[in-house]
């Protein structure tokens, strides 16, 4: 150390000992410092990549064009109204070059084809990262806590969701994530305000617990609370990981708090002799209960729909007295239920009740031993119900729905990493944080209340994507960029027919004027489409038009008066203004035109590839069977449909053939002759028997 100190002091002497020499040295240092910036610039990464790019394109056929496109120096996309200052194109120089499709080295790949241009939106709108940075490290993986690193490709659909509120065909993961957020009740506890000012709504319908003691036992509640998936693998209620004592006390409170509802139970006559169990199974099948309710088969797979609850172990849950009334008329217990009122006769009710009560699982309640509840337990149960926010989802007598029970997620997609607490071993990024929270919320602290869901990895990714779309940016974008979802329809059919449609739960499967499910055809223009006698007969005795479908319209055992009421309403109200149903006759078309239509059907348009007219020769399975279409549809509808199917039913897969008026008229004439021979439905019924 000593000598070097001496050396430096003597260096000082030689350099600055003399004023002129000192001046010279200072000027030199000044000059060097002036040169630092240009030198840094000269050795910068973007310059290096631009040089590499020139090497890359040198041998290509269109090298001259490519070179002309390349502008040397730092490039910038500046979009003030979006807050975008992106210099990514300084290194990613080939993004817009379609001819570089075969190049796979970064940063020179052409941008994959998307519906937007880079000049329109820049880069960070979709990919995040630091647009203004000019080094690879800073642009991609900013380590500063308040800045955003690049968004991993698996979540990139979240960026589409900043503007697009309607589900896009190209963003399946985002669409699924949004659906899961609504369907799994996340938004019961977490408020999500959308940029358009609305609040995200849940689409599940957790049952009211006000009269729960009429429906089930305390033992079942206990088992369910401990592990909902043990009762139903498809349960959407998450697991709260309750201790035995807590589950005991909550079940004690819910039973004690339940009030009886007059008329929702009825004694099961002891004299009734046990009905034939196979008859119950066939009635369950014929009523197409499986369109909405799933049951686990022997292999453990769920078979059936997910509109209603899973019924695999329903016999271990419901009380026979309650089930009896529910099967007679479920609206006594739950007026707004989506389940149709089937109007079963007493014998059918008994068949189904017995069939369902046999679906038990002896393991479920085997170890549940509950002593009579003490007042302390009941009081503690009430405290727990409040603490866990049960009333966020369920109606509980005497407990108000809590406001903002869980943190609001309106801006979760922009949450700064500095505000997050990570677990050891976790990557410090927002997507990783969100995914870990969804996967295993209590791992962030045992005192946390968020329950445990059982999501598949792809569902976690989808949920994370949907949450990442909730950004600050989405809220500040120019309003003109937003592609809002159509506002939810509150359409309500009027009068007695409207009441009947509510009672039958038509909207659970069919949509009308924008409201309703998509399991069955849209009925908005049904009155223009079908012929009255067919509709009346169909309501009485529905037969499927599509043998390949497993979900079908059930028979509701309607009275003639009810059928008349519904038919009148549909025929008068659900009329398309674009179709005059009387503009073409039901029959009487010239034989030559009919024959022309038949040939068009089989040769020019090959309709038999998807439709069946002659059950002996035609096999097409995709579209509805047309064996009796002349008795079912009005010729005016057939004609308009052939001319432009999507105009009548947006999104239908029937292709628009751009048919001439003459062809469409001839085909209509041919199809109009395909009448049912005798009783409608017989032919179709035979079809159904095919494998």
């Amino acid at each position: 150390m000593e000598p070097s100190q001496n050396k430096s002091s003597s260096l000082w002497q030689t350099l600055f000992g003399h004023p002129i020499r000192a001046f010279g040295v200072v000027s030199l240092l000044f000059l060097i410092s002036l040169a630092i910036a240009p030198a840094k610039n000269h050795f910068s990464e973007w310059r290096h990549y631009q040089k590499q790019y020139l090497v890359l394109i040198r041998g290509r056929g269109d090298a001259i064009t490519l070179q002309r496109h390349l502008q040397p120096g730092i490039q910038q996309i500046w979009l003030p109204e979006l807050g975008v200052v992106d210099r990514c194109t300084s290194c990613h120089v080939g993004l817009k070059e379609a001819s570089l499709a075969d190049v796979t080295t970064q940063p020179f790949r052409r941008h994959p084809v998307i519906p937007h241009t880079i000049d329109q939106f820049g880069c960070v709108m979709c990919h995040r990262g630091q647009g203004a940075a000019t080094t690879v490290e800073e642009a991609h993986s900013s380590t500063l806590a308040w800045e955003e690193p690049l968004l991993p490709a698996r979540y990139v659909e979240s960026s589409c969701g900043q503007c697009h509120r309607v589900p896009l065909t190209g963003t399946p993961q985002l669409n699924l994530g949004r659906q899961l957020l609504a369907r799994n009740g996340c938004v019961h506890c977490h408020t999500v305000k959308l940029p358009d000012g609305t609040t995200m709504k849940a689409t599940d319908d957790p049952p009211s617990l006000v009269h729960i003691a009429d429906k089930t036992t305390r033992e079942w509640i206990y088992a369910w609370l401990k592990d909902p998936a043990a009762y139903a693998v498809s349960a959407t209620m998450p697991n709260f990981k309750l201790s035995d004592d807590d589950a005991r006390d909550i079940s004690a409170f819910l039973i004690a708090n339940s009030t009886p509802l007059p008329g929702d139970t009825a004694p099961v006559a002891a004299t009734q002799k046990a009905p034939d169990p196979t008859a119950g199974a066939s009635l369950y099948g014929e009523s197409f209960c499986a369109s909405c309710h799933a049951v686990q088969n022997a292999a453990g797979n769920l078979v059936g729909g997910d509109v209603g609850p899973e019924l695999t172990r329903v016999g271990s849950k419901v009380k026979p007295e309650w089930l009896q009334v529910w099967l007679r008329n479920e609206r006594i217990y739950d007026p707004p239920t989506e389940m149709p009122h089937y109007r079963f006769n007493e014998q059918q009710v008994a068949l189904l009740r017995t069939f369902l009560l046999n679906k038990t699982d002896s393991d479920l309640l085997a170890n549940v031993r509950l002593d009579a509840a003490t007042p302390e337990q009941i009081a503690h149960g009430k405290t727990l119900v409040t603490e866990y926010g049960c009333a966020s989802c369920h109606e509980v007598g005497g407990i108000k729905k809590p406001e903002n029970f869980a943190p609001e997620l309106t801006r979760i997609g922009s949450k700064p990493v500095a505000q997050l607490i990570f677990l050891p071993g976790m990557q410090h990024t927002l997507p990783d944080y969100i995914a870990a929270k969804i996967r295993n919320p209590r791992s962030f602290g045992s005192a946390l209340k968020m329950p445990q869901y059982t999501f598949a990895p792809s569902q976690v990714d989808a949920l994370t994507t949907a949450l990442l779309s909730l950004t600050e940016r989405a809220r500040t974008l120019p309003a003109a960029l937003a592609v809002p979802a159509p506002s939810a329809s509150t359409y309500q059919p009027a009068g007695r027919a409207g009441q009947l449609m509510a009672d039958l739960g038509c909207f659970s499967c069919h949509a009308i004027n924008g409201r309703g499910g998509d399991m069955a055809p849209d009925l908005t223009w049904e009155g223009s489409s079908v012929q009255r006698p067919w509709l009346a007969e169909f309501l009485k005795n529905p037969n499927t038009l599509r043998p390949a479908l497993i979900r079908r319209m059930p028979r509701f055992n309607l009275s003639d008066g009810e059928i008349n009421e519904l038919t009148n309403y549909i025929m008068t109200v659900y009329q398309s203004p674009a179709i005059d149903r009387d503009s073409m006759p039901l029959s009487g078309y010239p034989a030559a035109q009919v024959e022309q239509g038949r040939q068009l059907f089989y040769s020019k348009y090959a309709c038999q590839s998807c439709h069946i007219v002659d059950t002996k020769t035609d096999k097409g399975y995709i579209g509805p069977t047309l064996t009796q279409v002349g008795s079912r549809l009005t010729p005016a509808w057939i004609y308009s449909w052939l001319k432009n199917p999507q105009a009548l039913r947006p999104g239908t897969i029937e292709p628009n053939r751009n048919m001439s008026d003459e062809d469409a008229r001839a085909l209509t004439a041919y199809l109009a002759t395909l009448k049912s021979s005798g009783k409608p439905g017989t032919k179709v019924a035979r079809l159904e028997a095919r494998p």
Partner: protein
Amino acid sequence: MTRLITISVIAFSIALTGCARKTASAGGPKPTAWGAAIVESSGGKQAGAVGSLLEQPVVVQVNDEQGTAIPGAPVEFSGPSGVSFDPPSGLTDSSGQFTTNVMLGGMAGRYQITATTLTKAQKRVDLKLEEIALGYQEQLGFQLNDKYCARCHNPESSPERVSNYDNLEVKPHAFTEGDTLNKMSDADLTAIISHGGPALSKSPWMPPYGYTLSKSDIQALIAYIRMVSDPPYQASGTVYAQK
């Protein structure tokens, strides 16, 4: 001089540790058996969105010379950068199989992944598999195919959807059949999809979609068809093989 020696010693030891990590990378439990061959059981040639987890896991099997499955043999997966495996390595189970979940890389294209086992003589035996990552356009094409085309073009049925393939008098090709589809130019594909079979003097059983789908939809379908064709369409080929 002493400096030089120190530096070379350090460099050497770094190189050594690097090597050491490589040979020990099988990690985990010690192999109890060795095979002679490694074959695919399932999971190759899947298509998923870029960066996504493939729907089905990849399952490989280690066999001996006679083709008998070998439990307890080491298997290690590797792939181009961006692809990840969970778990990346381990031993074959009691039926001689090893299962891993594959997460695709962030760029669209065909990814070649490699499953490796070791023989008794510590010789590497590789199995190369290919997985396909769909970019936005191909993903859109996949969705449109699923809605409009698959019922005729995919012979496989599911309980939710019965295939119409068997009902067709003229049989279409699955979009993976590169031998046929690669011979068709983009213009050919656009023509038959837009105007139906007769546009290429084929059967009208192939309907026209030019008045139902937009131009960009049809381009997306073609991009999808090109991406999944087997053998690969020359313009795409395998994009990401291991360096």
